[in-house]
């Protein structure tokens, strides 16, 4: 279990991570989602005690990272693919890490085999492709056979085969009961691998929720209606107690009402319809709306937005907040 309490990182005036509090729960894949520059990598470095938080603290099983005895046996991390000495063979790089944490030498060959680098174990990573470098980094993360694994943007820059390999690896690890914490700026990637989501934008926590909950809250389904008689339709819908949103093109979007009922209502009132179509907003759109609201807070005067976005994130039934934020964004 990794616990972050009020973790903040400031570089001079710039707040990169702003009062983050969340837990990474054991035995599941937690996706750490945010646009580029949201503070994901900084947060992960603080979790490993590489960067010192300006305020707040990180605890791993109740201990500070520096208090862990042989930390590679608790947490394996892939931060970036170029974190090895290019002039030292792949095997020797791993051997140095293994020795410092009293991991048997046989384990080095085991992980090299596991990530498919056994054939180039004696080669120097200087000449490795990005994908091979990534595999070596993952071998280092797996070295101590740790309970917790952390991957920072593991699929970045990989070819489809590499991406497939990493997804399978993460699912296998979770299936073995390991805790996996993986960052990404792609919602679609998370939807495939994560059980739980932590979303940040501009260093702030926007959501900390299970994947199904996030989907239920954010995969907004609505019915799109177009008519040459907008006032008449609007009145008819309002009279029936239905809330309507108007798009900039003049169409109506009606959430949470079955398409059949809307058709019947229009017929009852004799309104001509040019369109009556059920629509689904993708998770990617939901994510962009959510983080877009956070971005807007920093650059514009819409001070109330992040509170609403947050409210939506914290309250499983609170559809309103996210939608309002989305509409404004």
């Amino acid at each position, binding site marked *: 279990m990794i616990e972050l309490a009020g973790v903040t990182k400031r570089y001079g005036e710039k707040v990169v991570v702003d009062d983050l509090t969340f837990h990474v729960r054991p035995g599941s894949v937690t996706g750490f989602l945010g646009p580029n520059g949201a503070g994901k990598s900084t947060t992960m*470095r603080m979790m*490993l*005690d*590489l*960067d*010192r938080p300006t305020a707040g603290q990180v605890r791993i099983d109740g201990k500070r*990272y*520096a*208090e*862990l*005895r*042989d*930390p*590679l046996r608790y*947490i394996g*991390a892939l*931060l*970036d693919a*170029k*974190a*090895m*000495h*290019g*002039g*030292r*063979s792949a095997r*020797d*790089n791993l*051997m*140095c*890490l293994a*020795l*410092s*944490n*009293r991991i048997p030498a046989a384990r080095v060959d085991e992980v090299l085999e596991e990530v498919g680098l056994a054939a180039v174990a004696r080669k120097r990573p200087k000449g490795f492709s990005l994908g091979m470098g990534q595999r070596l980094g993952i071998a*280092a993360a797996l070295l101590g056979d740790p309970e917790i694994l952390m991957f920072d943007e593991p699929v970045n820059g990989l070819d489809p085969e590499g991406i497939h390999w990493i997804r399978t690896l993460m699912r296998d690890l979770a299936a073995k009961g390991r805790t996996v914490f993986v960052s990404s700026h792609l919602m679609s990637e998370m939807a495939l691998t994560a059980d739980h989501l932590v979303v940040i934008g501009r260093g702030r926590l926007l959501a900390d929720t299970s994947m199904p909950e996030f989907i239920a809250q954010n995969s907004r389904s609505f019915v799109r209606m177009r008519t040459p008689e907008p006032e008449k339709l609007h009145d008819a819908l309002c009279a029936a107690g239905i809330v309507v949103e108007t798009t900039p093109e003049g169409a109506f979007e009606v959430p949470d009402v079955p398409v059949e009922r809307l058709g019947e209502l229009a017929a009852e009132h004799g309104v001509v319809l040019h369109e009556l179509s059920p629509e689904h907003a993708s998770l990617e759109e939901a994510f962009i709306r959510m983080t877009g609201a956070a971005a807007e807070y920093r650059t514009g005067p819409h001070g109330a937005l992040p509170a609403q976005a947050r409210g939506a994130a914290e309250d499983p039934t609170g559809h309103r907040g996210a939608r309002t934020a989305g509409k404004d964004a």
Partner: protein
Amino acid sequence: MAAPAAVLHSEWVKIRTVRSTGWTLAMAFLVTVAFGVLLSALTNSRFDDLSKQDQLTFDAAGTSFAGGVLGQLAMIAFGVMVVGSEYSTGMIRTSLAAVPQRGALYFAKLAVASASALVVATVTSFAAFFAGQSVLGSHSTSLGEPHVLRATLCAALYMTLIALFSMGVAMMLRSSMLAMGILMPLFFLVTQILVTVPGAKKVAHYFPDQAGQAMTRVVQNDDTPYGPWGGLAIMALWVAAAVIGGLAVFRGRDA
């Protein structure tokens, strides 16, 4: 806490498994011995051209160590790269994730690298002495003469301390390029020039290399305001300052 023995072992494998260790230490040996022999041979052939004063204060042991002025540059490169390569390669994050106790990691690295430097420097120092004496002919000295063994051992200590000093500086700057760019010209040019400038001499005497070289002499310069042990003390202070400065930076800064 990581086990100190495990961290030392790990650092030893780190040093052993990169090529730069081999070639910088080999260069330190070759350059020091070769230039020592060359200068000794030259001095021997031109001994009669030296002034009476120079002949009286001739330091046969010191002459055979003269190659160290060039050889120390390879030791500087060794010290800088041992520390700086962690930063230039990005390995430092991986290293710290494995050993988050920064003081332990730092001192293990310095201990292993200094021990390696000391072994090579001792071999170099004796090799330079015997090779140099063999071409100095009638002007040569032997280890049995007063202060000669001390000068030879101190020449080895000097090379080791220069390497250690470079490690501290490289850690303070967290960059091989910067550290090389500052240390190389400083020890190869700046202090060498300053000691010949009358006004600057007084200050230059207290530079680490000038102070350290005093302990490698059998015959003391008249204008050096301290003896061999004074020189050692001054150099040790410089090294301690660099090492402590490096520790402070390493502990305080984000990796």
